[in-house]
Each structure stands twice: as C-alpha cells, then as structure tokens.
C-alpha cells in the first residue's frame, strides 16, 4: 500500500486556501458590485431615514433615531450580502459545470464549506465594518460592548453565509436562487426591527414578531451598541447559535447524501 508523500494528513489546508483565495479574487474583480453598491444603498438609508425622516422622530430608548437604525442597517446588509455571496459562489460552479473538479478533489465537505463560507463571511464582515464606518459620518455613535458587537457580527455572517450556501446548492435555476432572499429574508429583515423597536408594535404583533429569527439578531446586535434590547441578549445569542447549528446539520446532510450535487 502506498501513501502520498506530499499529501498532508488530516486537513487539506491547500484546498481550503485555494477555494478561499478563489472566492476573494472574485470579489476583488467586481468591487463596484461587491463593495460600492452595498455602501451606497446603506448611505441612502441614512440620508432618507436617518437625516430626513429621523430628525422628525423622537428618540427610542433615549437613542437618537438616526443612530438607532445603524445596527439594524448593518444586520440587513450582513444578512442579504452573506446569502447573496455564498449562494452565488456555490451555485455558479453547479451552473457552469466546473463543480466536477470540487467533487473529484480529495476534500472533505467541511473543508469545502470552510473555504466558501469563510470567504463569504469575510466579505460580509468587511462590508459591515465599512458600513459602520460610513455611519459615523452621518450620526454620532457609541458602542457599549465592542467585543459582543464583533461576536454578533461574525456569528451572523457565518450563519447566513451557511444559509446562503444551502440555498445555492438547493437552487436549480436563477429564479430559485433569488426567491428565498427576496421573498423570505428581506421581509423578515425589514420586519425584524431594523427601523423600529418591536416594543412599538401592538401586543399581538409583538408576539408574532418573536417568531422572526431576525428579531433576535438585530436585538442582540443593537444591545451591543446601546445596551438596550428588545429581547434578552442571552436569548439572542442562543437563537443565533441554534440557527447556526441547524445550518451546519443541513450542509452535513447535503454532502453526505450528495443532494443536488451528485447522482
């Protein structure tokens, strides 16, 4: 029996690095679409909701409205960009057929996931930080718990990149690739308290809102900024981790069965 002299045992690091670099290079080739466009649209939100409308709104929990919406806007971008990046990253090789190489390579499923999801999450995190920086030009900001802020940022980016990865594998056409982000994620994100506190809702809708997972993300993230939250921060963290675990389980199942990847 032979062993490959140059193949590292355990983890195929070169493969993870190759996928990660490939994906990052794809982003850098399209800076307008990847970076400038999300920053521009977020700036528009600040101008419209923060400056124009926000100046006529009263402060929420003693936080000026323009500042109040910052965590929600970052989350909104984080969710949509993570899903868009990761779903497209794995859908495109399936669409063009280049996925044959991935399937024939000596890589474990979790190495593929680390490469693709790692790259998608990196982009989202960088984007989130850029938007945060952009926000400081429009509104005065303070971050009460920077450590937790970063943790929510990273966890959310990873979780929703995983979710996007699953969508990319599930989708067998460009329409399906768009349908979940547009019809499910965007409404959930808008109704998840990006622009208001769910305390402002009537009691019935407040209960309904608690079934929206995005509420917990935004609430936790906003707490890391202002120290005030709609739901307990431990609950927020717990719900994020539950969703993360669910996504990991789904990806493991996909690769074990070859669902939509192998015949």
């Amino acid at each position, binding site marked *: 029996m032979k062993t*490959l002299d140059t*193949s590292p045992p355990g983890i195929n690091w*070169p493969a993870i690095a*190759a*996928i990660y670099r*490939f994906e990052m290079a794809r982003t850098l080739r399209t800076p307008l679409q990847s970076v400038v466009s999300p920053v521009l649209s977020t700036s528009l939100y600040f101008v419209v909701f923060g400056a124009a409308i926000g100046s006529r709104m009263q402060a929420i929990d003693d936080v000026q409205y323009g500042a109040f919406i910052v965590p929600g806007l970052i989350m909104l971008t984080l969710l949509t960009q993570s899903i868009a990046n990761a779903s497209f990253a794995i859908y495109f090789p399936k669409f063009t*057929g*280049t996925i044959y190489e991935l399937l024939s390579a*000596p890589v*474990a499923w979790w190495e593929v996931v680390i490469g693709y999801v790692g790259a998608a999450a990196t982009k989202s995190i960088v984007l989130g930080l850029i938007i945060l920086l952009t926000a400081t030009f429009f509104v005065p900001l303070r971050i009460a718990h920077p450590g937790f802020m970063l943790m929510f940022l990273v966890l959310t980016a990873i979780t929703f990149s995983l979710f996007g990865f699953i969508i990319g594998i599930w989708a067998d056409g460009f329409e399906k690739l768009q349908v979940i982000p547009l019809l499910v994620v965007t409404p959930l994100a808008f109704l998840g308290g990006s622009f208001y506190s769910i305390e402002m809702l009537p009691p019935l809708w407040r209960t309904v809102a608690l079934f929206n997972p995005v509420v917990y993300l935004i609430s936790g993230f906003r707490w890391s900024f202002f120290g005030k939250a709609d739901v307990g921060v431990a609950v927020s963290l717990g719900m994020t981790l539950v969703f993360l675990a669910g996504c990991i389980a789904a990806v493991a199942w996909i690769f074990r069965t070859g669902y939509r990847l192998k015949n």
Partner: protein
Amino acid sequence: MPPMSQTTTPQTATSPIISVSGLTKTYASGFQALKSVDLDIRKGEIFALLGPNGAGKTTLISIICGLVNPTTGTVRADGHDIVTDYRAARAAIGLVPQELTTDAFETVRATVGFSRGLFGKRKDPALVEQVLKDLSLWDKRDSQIRTLSGGMKRRVMIAKALAHEPRILFLDEPTAGVDVELRQDMWQMVRRLRDNGVTIILTTHYIEEAEEMADRVGVISKGEIILVEDKVELMRKLGRKQLTLSLQAPLAELPPALSTFDLALATGGEELVYTYDTKAERTGITTLLQALSEAGIRFSDLRTSQSSLEDIFVSLVRDRS
C-alpha cells in the same frame, strides 16, 4: 511533463492500479447505467474504453473519480477504496471531463494553481510553468479563460488535471471536437506521461484512436464490459474481412479440395463466405480464387465487407444473450 512523485514501493506487474468489482449504477430515474462491472487497469498502461454513446463509459469514470455515487460494488484506486479512503484515492487521480467546462474570468495560471491546491498540493510555480509550457499555454498564462478558443480551453482543462501530478489520468472523449494539431499534441503528451509512469484511461468511440494509442482495450456496451483485450489481439479480430461469392450453381457441401480455407456456405448453398485477415501478410484471396477455378466452381458476383466496431458490439452482445 511534471516529474512524477517517485514511489519505490515494489509492485508486481499484475497488481492493478484501479480495481473495479461488482460495480452497478441505477440512476434515480430507474435507468441502469452499469450492470455489475468488473475491471482491472494495470499500472502504467494506456487503457482505452470503447463503446457507443450511452454505453456507460462516462458513468464508470464518474464513479471512479467521485462525481457519481455507486449503487453497489467497490472501486480501489491506487490501493485505496474510493469511498472509505477517498482522500488518498482521489489525490492520485486527474480527470479531464468530456464537457468543456472552465471558469471564465480566472487567468490560466490562476486556475491551474487553484487545481493544484484543491488536490492538497503546496504551491509550485515552477511545476505549473512546466505544465503550461508542455501544453503550449505559457503565452496565454495571464489571459482570462473566456478569451481563449475551444481548443485552448481543452488544453487548460488538461493542465488543471495534471497540476497535482496525478498517477492516474482519465481522459473522457479527449478528441471530441478537437483539431488535428491538438490531437497530435495530446497523443504526444499522453505518451510522455506514460513514459513517466502515469496510467492513462481514455474513452472514445473511435476505433482508430484506440488503435493508435492504447495498450489494452475494453469494450463497454449497455452498461456491461463485454470485452477486455490487448490491442494487438483486438485489432486482429477487428481487422477481419469477409469475401462473399454468389455461386452460379448452389453447393450442397464444400468440396474437400477447399478444406484448407476458412470457408462457409450461406443462404442455402448459394453463397460462399471466405473470412480473412487484412493484417496478415497474405490474405489468401488469390489462391482461393485459383482453387475455386480448378474445382470448377463458378460465381456470378462478389463483394467484401469489413466488420465495424458496431458489428463487433452487436455480435458480442448477441453471443452473450
């Protein structure tokens, strides 16, 4: 060509580098693409897998390379089970699929480097340079793949498959839609790789290709390997022709004077069929015609026919059922 990793583990000439046993594949649609395939590929040989479209060639290759899950059966590649020990098995294999599928916006050099990394090898710019030069891609190294011609893209796919110095190379229909120059380059490359100890498995439905390149030939039809033979032997069989003589008067039996010829009576004694070998030094046609004349057998017409690959398939399948 890239220097192949020198492993000096002694291996007998008979030990196969790929061993397929009891392999079946039934797709979700119910289509049975492979019906219990057993096949051994010898180390260092060029093996041509011949078969008509839809015979199961690509399915067989796809299972060995990890693109398709087998229904039952096992495959060992380079001594490793392709399912339980897929890392070691796949690291030894390079695949050039039939379809021309490449990235669009990557450069040639980047995509070949990507392949090397994906297969677990550290960066080696010198080796990538050598692979690109061997395939006449060095001038295009910084071009985006989408700007290349179809033939160049095919070369890129070969370069990607060779980037991790595989010990086994699969070429699925390598010459489909390829011009003469690339075909010549490709065969030269295949021979060089074989000289470096790489085992090459190629599929084709052109008998000439198998004839030119292969050491051994396997014929697959309707999901079954119906023949595995040394090329020389197969060529002898394929090289057979038949001369059919329509007789003026039907014969009840062959005259003893003609017993030395490979003759048979057909259509109720009205036709005489002579089977001969075009590759032999002498076909024996002249002597046969002389002998017929001496025996007073006259004929009104004659025709020759050559058994095509398709005929061989048909007769092989008929023989088995």
